[in-house]
């Protein structure tokens, strides 16, 4: 680097002026992932996911005579919808989510009893894993209560075969 020269100083001044003109406001700190024991981003994400999963599961279960499972999913959906703090939007339609039967699987289950049994079991085992993950992450008491209900349901349903 050569010693400082006038033009270089001018450039620096110009650059400083430009930077000052273009200064963006400082970003707000990231919102906390959950407010203190409140209904935060993790709770909202879980509730939306659980509604999408249970709705797809009900379509699959409609093809079976598992009355208790159908009732349990319906009860869960009622409780989950009570937790929503904004109109429900299905963020996961068409996705290959753990525990969520896909439309293709439901279609196959309609004609194949073996596939039906397998998909019901996969729904139970995988969604139990998701619910257990939620149990470890969710602090909002009313949401945590629904999570515990879902865990009880799935554990009993798997035990019943």
């Amino acid at each position: 680097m050569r010693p400082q020269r006038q033009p270089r100083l001018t450039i620096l001044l110009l650059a400083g002026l430009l930077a000052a003109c273009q200064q963006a406001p400082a970003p707000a700190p990231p919102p906390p992932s959950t407010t203190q024991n409140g209904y935060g981003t993790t709770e909202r994400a879980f509730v939306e996911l659980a509604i999408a999963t249970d709705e797809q599961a009900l379509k699959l279960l409609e093809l079976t005579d598992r009355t208790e499972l159908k009732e349990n999913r319906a009860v869960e959906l009622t409780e989950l919808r009570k937790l929503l703090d904004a109109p429900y939007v299905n963020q996961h339609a068409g996705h290959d989510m753990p525990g969520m039967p896909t439309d293709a699987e439901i279609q196959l289950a309609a004609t194949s009893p073996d596939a039906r049994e397998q998909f019901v079991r996969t729904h139970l085992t995988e969604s139990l894993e998701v619910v257990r993950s939620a149990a470890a992450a969710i602090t909002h008491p009313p949401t945590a209560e629904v999570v515990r209900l879902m865990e009880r349901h799935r554990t009993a349903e798997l035990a019943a075969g």
Partner: protein
Amino acid sequence: MRKHLFHIAAVIGLIAAAFNVPVAAQGEPVRVAEFLAECPISHRLADDPIVLPNLAGASHFHDFFGNHSTNARSTQQSLEGQTGNCNPAADISSYWVPTLYRNNTAIAPTGVTFYYLGEGVNNPAAIQPTPYGLKIVAGNAKATGDADSIARWSCLHAGHVNPSKNFVTCPAGTMLETYLDFPQCWDGRNLDSADHKSHMSYPVAGGCPSSHPVSVPKLRMVLRYPVNGSTAGLRLASGTGQTMHGDFFNVWPRAEMERRVRNCLNVVIKCDHNGNHG
């Protein structure tokens, strides 16, 4: 608009020349505002720290690039200070996309490039560094067809195959590739939003709208998959090719990002991995 852009570039070039500031070593500098990071696949998880924060194993599968530590619990604080696999190593940002499958076999992309561009806005000199900690989701994971999709699939080394919003059949010896452009206008306040989208917007007529006035680098993701031939059995973890989406969690060290925006984008110059030119 191109003329306008050229004009600005020319004026900057003239000022630089007048003050004997090296713009490029010799001859014409490449007039593309660009820097880049290449980040191969790092790991694969059923996690999504933006859409399903803290819910480990609750997502469809994603291929993660860059920061090695990314998982459902990742935050700005957890990511910083970690290492990644990008070239340049300075970029420890997190990037992820839904996993691609042929039937039930996952296929990892073998070429993964993140371009940071000054295009899309008429005034690249006004581009600000991407805010530290910014989260952006691009594309529509819920797309039900072409109309609500911005996905783009094409073939590397087979330009005659028309691009499509869904998978395309690439000739033998070529590769399936996908492009995704992230929104480049920021609301100036929020690093994320409830729908993970509304704090960002695409430019309108070459400028950032008043609702999202801060111009930031345009992130363009280009993925190349070792796939050609029939599209039968191809799917993303999120569904059809139209559901291609990408997530970006910016943890570029501030000084590295600022230097590149200043030296590459603001002055419309193509830079290398290290943010240098000519």
